[in-house]
């Protein structure tokens, strides 16, 4: 590979607290050689091929910690190739794949399959997670050590929650030996049983059974209590309510060490958007009130929430063309993650550096991977975007195999123009 020179870009590298006009050099191995204002036209050999980015923004490739792939078992919803195309067009270069496949990812024999398919069919970095418990049933813990050695990056029951506090305490206790990362989807299944949307005025009016915020808060409180006794690497997958935020804030103030994520959907939409039973907005955790949404946004700013995820959950149209109670849960979102997050910058809710850190350096740090910043020697996974270009979400243009976007027709500002993975140009908008 020849060295590549990207010049005249606005370089934002939150880890190094950089936001300046400059360039970036990719070395012959696809690694970052240098980045920042020192990389300018005058300092480069005149014979070199230079890509002028015309003041567009250059950030580390996005690391998305919650993505559902359909392989194995749900290939009709999404496969590695379609996921890769969708991710790259959204500037996402690394994903943590959720283990809720068919069969679920709960043993070492599945890991090779995932890694091989991920490598052969996609251009992005796939970091597979495995379940916390056998078949994600919440009973028998997974082989953390063996799975981790095989290349499993984190453990989570994905869409499920370990309900039994004894099992959870033992998981935390055991997993700490292998320094495994535990990711919890916080939802008490009894409190949320048959629930469809946030419990409140809207659920009363629509006649849909509500999911109380308590279902989330109670699991977070439980896990944080357990964490005090059984310390491990612990991450809350995504939270949705203001009441949970105060629990997290207090625990962080008390010095507890853990991290928290939020879905872009909960930052950008609220329960009112469900309107007349829009099943594309049936999500888990559910969209809550505007007050909750505003609190979540504020928590990005003050660092209570560390990570923004797409919670990309492709669902075929058939599974959404049903009554609200019968419809599948989840929304496609990996390709609109960045543009939708930029909305929070454009409406002056979140500072750009904070926003980018929650999409790049923070998740990379939690996962412990060589991504998410522009340090010398790191993989040249890069996302380059035009901060201001306006566009409208059109489900027919979505690259994911499933078209269940919750933001059809939304007017967004900011779009990815180029994505590099390991120094190679993997995507370029036309």
């Amino acid at each position, binding site marked *: 590979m020849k060295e590549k020179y990207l010049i005249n870009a606005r370089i934002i590298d939150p880890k190094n607290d950089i936001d300046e006009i400059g360039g970036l050099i990719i070395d012959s191995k696809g690694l970052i050689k240098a980045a920042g204002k020192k990389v300018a036209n005058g300092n480069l050999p005149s014979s070199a091929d230079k890509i002028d980015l015309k003041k567009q923004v250059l950030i580390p490739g996005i690391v998305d910690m919650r993505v559902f792939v359909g392989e194995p078992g749900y290939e009709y919803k999404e496969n590695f190739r379609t996921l890769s195309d969708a991710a790259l067009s959204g500037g996402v270069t690394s994903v943590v794949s959720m283990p809720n496949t068919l069969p679920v990812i709960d043993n070492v024999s599945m890991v090779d399959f995932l890694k091989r398919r991920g490598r052969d069919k996609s251009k992005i970095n796939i970091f597979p997670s495995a379940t916390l418990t056998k078949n994600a049933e919440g009973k028998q813990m997974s082989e953390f050590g063996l799975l981790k050695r095989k290349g499993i990056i984190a453990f989570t029951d994905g869409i499920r929650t370990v309900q039994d506090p004894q099992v959870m305490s033992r998981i935390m206790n055991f997993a700490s030996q292998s320094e495994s990362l535990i990711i919890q989807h916080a939802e008490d299944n009894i409190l949320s049983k048959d629930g469809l949307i946030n419990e409140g005025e809207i659920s009363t009016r629509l*006649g849909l059974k509500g999911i109380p915020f308590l279902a989330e808060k109670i699991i977070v409180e439980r896990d944080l209590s357990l964490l005090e006794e059984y310390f491990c690497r612990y991450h809350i997958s995504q939270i949705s309510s203001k009441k949970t935020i105060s629990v997290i804030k207090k625990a962080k103030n008390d010095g507890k060490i853990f991290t928290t994520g939020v879905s872009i959907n909960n930052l950008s939409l609220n329960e009112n958007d469900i309107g007349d*039973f829009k099943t594309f907005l049936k999500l888990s955790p559910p969209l809550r009130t505007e007050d909750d949404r505003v609190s979540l946004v504020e928590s990005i700013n003050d660092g209570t929430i560390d990570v923004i995820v797409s919670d990309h959950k492709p669902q075929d149209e058939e599974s959404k063309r*049903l*009554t*609200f*109670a019968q419809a599948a849960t989840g929304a496609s979102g990996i390709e609109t993650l960045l543009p939708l997050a930029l909305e929070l910058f454009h409406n002056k809710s979140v500072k750009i550096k904070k926003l980018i850190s929650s999409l790049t350096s923070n998740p990379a740090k939690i996962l412990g991977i060589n991504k998410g910043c522009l340090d010398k020697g790191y993989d040249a996974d890069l996302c380059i975007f035009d901060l201001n270009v306006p566009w409208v979400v059109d489900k027919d243009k979505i690259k994911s195999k499933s078209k269940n976007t919750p933001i059809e027709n939304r007017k967004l500002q900011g779009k990815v123009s180029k994505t590099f993975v390991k120094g190679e140009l993997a995507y370029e908008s036309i």
Partner: protein
Amino acid sequence: MAIIKKLKAVKIEQNHLLGIQGLSFPEVSEILKQAKTFIALNKSSSKKMDILRGKTQINLFFEPSTRTQSSFELAGKRLGADVMSMNIINSAIKKGETLIDTAMTLNAMHPDIIVIRHQDSGAPNLLAQKVNCAVINAGDGRREHPTQALLDALTIINRKGKVEGLKIAICGDILHSRVARSNIYLMNMLGAEVNVVAPKTLLPHSIERLGVKSFIDMKKGLDNCDIVMMLRLQNERMHGSFLPSAREYYEFFGLTPDKLKSAKKNALIMHPGPMNRGVEIDTNLADDINRSVIREQVELGVAVRMACLKIYCKKD
């Protein structure tokens, strides 16, 4: 007939009757006005009209129902429509067909109106998006049961002359009740003051936001009321998570002569049926011809449904 006056036409905006939410005051008035014209007809010896001759009405009931289904069936037949009631137990739905596919199949047979009852809230809305004919909601999940509320309003008007200014208490399992929701919207719209009375476990979240006062003390909730509307308590909710027992419920929330004393002397008792005697209502009160209008509700239900079918049936 003398009672059929020349009505001033009110344009009904919607093509479907999906709920009281979405109806305007003039639209409700129009439905009630037309329903009144059918009351006498239903009492006469010759009940058949030909307003809907040549029209096809399909009753699509996914939940068991006796009174609502037979009421809609009679209403359609009295107006001269060809009425078909789908027996869901034998239908393709049991074989895994989705609601939309069923709707498309029925739609291909060119019905003029579909009356649907479904266990899922919002099912009529989904159906309405997919068919060319009018859709009438005969009860969806715990969301709405608009014709029940309309017939309740007609019953009240028949007895009290108006709804405006009356004080109405709705008592019982508000949480799971579509009848309660539709009545809250409608009675509020017609200018009544609405109280809901229920144990806290059977009150939906933020119910006050729908424009009612909520009470856990039945006597306070019934205080000075003109109408006491009782709701059916489903037996499966009696034990376990919602209530301790039937006798505890009856003690505090069952309608008894003693509790009824808090209401006005001439207060009327209503119930959408079917009743659980001795659970939500004292059996003698239910049959008290001076107080209970439960049978009248059933009677006027046919008139209201005739009006709805006439208004919403696809015009040529």
